[in-house]
């Protein structure tokens, strides 16, 4: 009897989880489906779910009109660069906060997070003027630095949480054995925190990949990433939903694939320390 109840509950849980998953994934699924429709089918009412003539025409048009590889490469550089640079700054910061906290550590952590609370547009003009002054408008390196700074609070917070789970005694033992600070960080702490670092990297890569405000406002031709690629297909006067969907699918495909293969790491990292 008890087993029957357990199986039934499992079934219900699975069904509910699938239903929620489908609801969350539906907009992406719809975008992908729309990208294979003609413009007329894309706006058909009632909407057509699967019963349409699948076409690759939109992808061909998008490919012909835009240099997809250039946008993709820029996205990889900006998202990858800012994530790596962020880690280089954040690992030592999180280490000091986790293992040698001062009385202001908690305040600093909160203060860092508070910088995320200001709407980005509030500092658009100052940052734009700084970029003009330094001659780095429409420049990948500038975006790498800016996105790194924007995501730094999250990277530090995440790493801080992971590092706190690592017993300080292990690091102490390493020091007793004569490890220098650099050795302690590189050979003791980092290997133990690899799952946490990996999930932090992944999450930040995704955040930087999807960042649309700065990447649209600070780029023109040379540094424009996939967010600018999608924006170029959105039109207020004309129905180009199928092409827009094709462009969106091409823009999210790399990150979707990356997310799919690394989902275990991602989930493990995100729930790390949540249950004791």
């Amino acid at each position, binding site marked *: 009897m008890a087993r029957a109840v357990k199986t039934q509950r499992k079934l219900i849980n699975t069904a509910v989880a699938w239903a929620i998953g489908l609801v969350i994934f539906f907009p992406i699924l719809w975008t992908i489906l729309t990208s294979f429709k003609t413009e007329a089918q894309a706006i058909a*009412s009632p909407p057509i779910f699967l019963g349409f003539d699948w076409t690759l025409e939109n992808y061909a048009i998008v490919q012909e009109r835009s240099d997809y590889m*250039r946008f993709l490469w820029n996205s990889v*550089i900006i998202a990858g660069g800012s994530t790596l640079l962020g880690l280089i700054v954040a690992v030592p910061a999180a280490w000091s906060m986790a293992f040698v906290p001062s009385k202001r550590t908690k305040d600093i952590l909160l203060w860092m997070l508070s910088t995320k609370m200001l709407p980005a547009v509030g500092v658009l003009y100052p940052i*734009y003027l700084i970029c003009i002054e330094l001659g780095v408008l*429409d*420049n990948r390196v500038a975006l790498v630095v800016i996105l790194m700074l924007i995501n730094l609070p999250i990277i530090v917070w995440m790493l801080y949480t992971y590092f706190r789970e690592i017993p300080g005694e292990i690091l102490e033992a390493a020091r007793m054995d004569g490890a220098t600070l650099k050795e302690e960080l*590189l050979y003791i702490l980092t290997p133990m925190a690899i799952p946490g670092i990996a999930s932090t990297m992944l999450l930040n890569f995704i955040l930087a990949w999807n960042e649309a405000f700065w990447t649209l406002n600070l780029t023109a031709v040379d540094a424009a990433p996939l967010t600018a690629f999608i*924006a170029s297909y959105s039109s207020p*006067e004309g*129905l180009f939903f199928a092409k827009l969907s094709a462009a969106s699918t091409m823009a999210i495909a790399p990150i979707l694939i990356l997310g799919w293969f690394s989902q275990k790491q991602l989930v493990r990292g995100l729930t790390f320390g949540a249950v004791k």
Partner: protein
Amino acid sequence: MTMKHVLGATTALTLGATAVFADSHAKTITIATVNNGDMIRMQGYTDNFTEATGINVEWVTLEENVLRQRVTTDITTKGGQFDIMTIGMYETPIWGSNGWLVPLNGLSAEYDVDDILPAMRGGLSHDGTLYAAPFYGESSMVMYRTDLMEKAGLEMPSDPTWQFIREAAAAMDDPENDINGICLRGKAGWGEGGAFITVTGNSFGARWFDEEWNAQFDQPQWKAALEFYVNLMNDYGPEGYATNGFNENLSLFQQGKCGMWIDATVAASFVTNPNDSTVADSVGFALAPNSEGVEKRANWLWAWALAIPAGTQQEAEAKQFIEWATSKDYIELVAENEGWANVPPGARTSLYENPEYIKVPFAQMTLDSINAADPTDPTVDPVPYVGIQFVAIPEFAGMATEVSQEFSAAYAGQQSVDEALEKAQAIANEVMEAAGYK
């Protein structure tokens, strides 16, 4: 992997990649533009320009609102990211008067600047100086289903009144067959529903401000206009019209779900295109309506135009491109390759004198609609501003978006027409006072 490796990899990745794409051309101009059909078509012909002049062209295509924010930031900070910007009739006189744009003086004789339609030229000038060249222009007009009109036993006059529009909407409305009598914009936003209700107001004798910049939403003309619109749409409009903009209505009309649609003349080429529209062969056109006894009609005037930001290093090349893109030759180039129905409309007088073009079903009505719109005299009572569906002052975009949000809330039934007008009055007066107009 050591820290040195990580650092090295990051630096190499970022700096190396910068070098890969940093190929510099001696003469390259960068153009910021919108993703509209005519603009995209022009990008396809850019090679012709490059071949003729040796000047390379880089395009930055953005969604309209993103483009506005992007080019405004760049021009106010003198960022110098763009050599040409695609801007509209609202920005041009304001930016021109601020000294942000290069005056388009000294255009060549072959360009024939006098050929630009007077309404367009006037709207893109400040103090008689042209600051942007129209690539294509538009007004608004009635698009209606000729088959449904015939079935209803009515005949659309070429200059209908709102009262006739209501009568026709009632006759064509057929909920059982999923046909709405009329589809109109209700979506919040100064360029969406805000533009439409402003011209509707004009056609009922209303105005945004009196000559002392006092808001006029407390006047009976506004109440009459807004009440008429709400009643018409509640009775014969589509469900959820409060969130419908240009694209939503285009989609409804193309699928045969609207008896009438009053919107941009540029939509005519979409609804008559058999590839996209199920009603392509049964669309008629008429002037935008007026209320009985009011001489002003509900038609606007807009142009997407090319302008050169002050401070560009490539002024001569940019001017060369503008001359090419807005020339008679460009129109002929498109006509030759894609047919007359696909040339950019509404910019040049000579286009409407062309016997080939005038055969296009919506050509004459587009011209008549443009000619019926006068941005310097948009309302029945005098106003201190220029502009038909907008007020050409920098504060308008923000203020009108707020006002249109209040109106959209009334369309959605969240508040009454009186409440919406009361709030609109307060918003407009507050903004005018804060900005020192009164």
